[in-house]
């Protein structure tokens, strides 16, 4: 079936609320999923894959392990980036504001591909960002200029770093200097695939025109989660609507 972005956003917010996410978290999580889907990064497929673990995630957030000047290490406590992503990017941006640049590492966190929307949002505050993580035999890198609406998203072979479920974020005032810092820390293999900003824009325009295709089973699952935040209707409750 096809749904609109607004409809899917409303459903996702309530579904995440049904999973126990708090206000800021469910807003951010819905935005992350939607952004990935409408820009051609298969956000709904990722969500379908992530849902089984989200049912049991206890809504844990990232925990600060250490923070020395412009470097911080966080522990994701085996939680999802949907819960840890905002905190991590915000910490990186705050440190960069204070020190000119920053590097934050988040370990032990899942569903890292959802991070894109958080980076795009942070870039609107005049920050340049690079994010990097490894999945199996591939490494992924996202780069975004200050103020840009889409990142450059590339996959690489032969990862240079393979910390367990780890994610690294580099932030600065301009992308060239952030990339330079990044290259001193990470050695990339050959590019396997790049998703260009133009491809993301085309995907977005298609969605705007035709709506978003969603698997019926996933939509039904979201509906079931939404039902968790609804209250049983009674004669008494109808009085609370004007009867």
């Amino acid at each position: 079936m096809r749904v609109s972005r607004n409809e899917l956003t409303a459903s996702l917010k309530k579904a995440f609320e049904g999973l126990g996410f708090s206000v800021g978290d469910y807003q951010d999580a819905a935005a992350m999923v939607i952004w990935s889907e409408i820009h051609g990064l298969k956000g709904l497929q990722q969500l379908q894959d992530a849902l089984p673990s989200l049912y049991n995630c206890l809504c844990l957030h990232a925990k600060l392990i250490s923070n020395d000047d412009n470097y911080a290490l966080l522990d994701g406590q085996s939680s999802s980036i949907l819960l840890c992503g905002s905190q991590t990017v915000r910490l990186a941006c705050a440190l960069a504001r204070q020190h000119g640049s920053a590097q934050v590492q988040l370990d032990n966190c899942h569903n890292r591909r959802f991070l894109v929307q958080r980076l795009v949002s942070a870039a609107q505050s005049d920050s340049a960002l690079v994010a990097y993580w490894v999945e199996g035999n591939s490494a992924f890198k996202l780069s975004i200029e200050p103020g840009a609406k889409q990142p450059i998203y590339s996959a690489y072979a032969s990862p240079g770093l393979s910390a367990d479920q780890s994610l690294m974020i580099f932030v600065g005032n301009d992308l060239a200097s952030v990339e330079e810092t990044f290259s001193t820390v990470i050695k990339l293999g050959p590019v396997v695939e790049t998703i260009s900003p133009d491809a993301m824009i085309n995907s977005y325009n298609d969605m705007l025109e035709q709506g978003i295709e969603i698997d019926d089973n996933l939509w039904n699952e979201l509906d079931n989660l939404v039902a968790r935040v609804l209250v049983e209707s009674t004669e008494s409750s109808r009085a609370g609507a004007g009867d």
Partner: protein
Amino acid sequence: MHSGYRSTAKHSLSQSAGLPLRPANQVMQLNRLGSFHQSRLSFMRTLVRRMVQENWQIKSTVFDLDKEGYGTAVYEVNARYGTYSYVLFSHYLDPQNRNDRVIADQWDLTMALCEGTVDTEQLEFLRSNVPKQEAGRVDSRVFVLSRGNRSGRTFDYVVDELAMGRQPDIDVIAEVGYLYRTTAAYGSGKLGMADWEKVRTKHRDFARPFAAEMFTCFMLRHFSLQHADYIAAQRAPKTAVKLDDDIKRYFGIGNSTGLGMAPFLINHPLLINQWIEQRETALARAVAAGENGIDVSTLDKFATATARVIQHLGEISTGDSQQSASNVVVREELQDLAQWLSAESENIIASHYSWAELAQHAEYYWHIETQELINSMLIELYPELVDELEEMMAVEEDQHLVPQMSLNDLKALIEDKYDWALAIDFSQTESQGSFWYRSEEKMEPRLGQTHIDMGMEKQMPLAIGRMVRECYNEICIFMAEFPQQDVAHFILQRPNFSGAICRIQTMARSQYGDIRENLVHSDVLPIHLLRCKLSFFGVSKFDPRSRLWVRNTMFQGAPLISDFGKPFFDDWQFPIKPVLSSTSDPSVG
């Protein structure tokens, strides 16, 4: 009396584009928002201006109704930038099943506004889904889905009169004001429809907030008038007459609005800020235009408007004792104003009396609804200063958290911008006596009583004041241990407050937006929220049915489609009973 109208007090000044806007602590009080009336910037007004001035061409391409008026109608709309289709289905509805609530599942009329023209295949698709409303699905070719119910008091009466060759009694019409009332107009991507982003970027004719929804209601009004003429002619082809055009203009579309509209205002604070800021800017411009005195012509217009509003209020029929009493008081105060304008007009002009002084007098001595009516009337006087603001009513609802802000600065910001929230004593039982929740019945928002109704653990986060207070308390506790920390480090420790901080920081950059009221107080009056939003829609004749829902009238007094392209004075606000100037046309087409 005259001296009482002159005051040396100044408006509080808050600079925006160099003009003094009223402060948020005055404007954003819930009872004031609930006293707003329509203005030149209201969405119905701006839509009508656009349709008439651009001479939109609207014709029915399908009018396939049986003798009782049941069937299908399709209208093709050729606007300035595009072609659209308004598709309507008329169904038999047992009067016992006629229900205005969101939870209803049958209606007299159901309709959809679509992009482009509609072919046979799409019409069948719409026929299968539009009558089901929330239980159906449409697609991104559809902008708006809506429904309407007949007025039990007027529809049959008007048809009977027309069938017997008579025009209906204006006094009967005045009691109600419409033939049909709409109970919902869904847009913005609901039920598979086009997202607002698509409408805004692709269809300039409807690229203003709620323009497509308002147009759908306008077309319902058009159909309702055509429908009455049609059924009367079918019933009595030899005797039936058509409704007189002056009477047609006096018909609007009824509207029932309940709590479903209330959360919108809380969840779209930047949009509400935008609407109110434009209205306040319009008011500031009007007041500034009269800074050095008022000319004769403008004063005459104002006096005429005052007389008209007095008549308008006198013609409102409401069973709500509070609204009725308020209307009486407002009328009396406006009659005082009218008498003063009449007796002192020369003096007013000679003494360079200003609108600011009148507004001040109203604030000191008159009912809050009188104040806001006068403000709407002042805005009306200066279209050349005001109308351009209609293009500024849209904004992206995009909230941003500033992680590098020190907690010290955030704490000070809360104390400055949210002093109203910190002033609420949430330890009082009545301060948390209500809660908002979504019912499993069509997710209808409802208001529950704390510890009495079920569902408190699932309440919606609409208590902004309480949310700010909780956040503030937590910041104070955290700062006792880490006084130099920033927001980023605070939300690592207290992640559940990120949403609150995001809203606080975002709204601190705007002037209006947050309603300064405890929305979970036992005595909260949600009807004020509804009235505020409805005033921006442009409705009139508020008729509260309880503190939770209100009936009102849309487009009453507005031009007819046959008036498009003709000279237009845009003065249909505050409709009054027409004085019939023409005889009815006995022919029925």
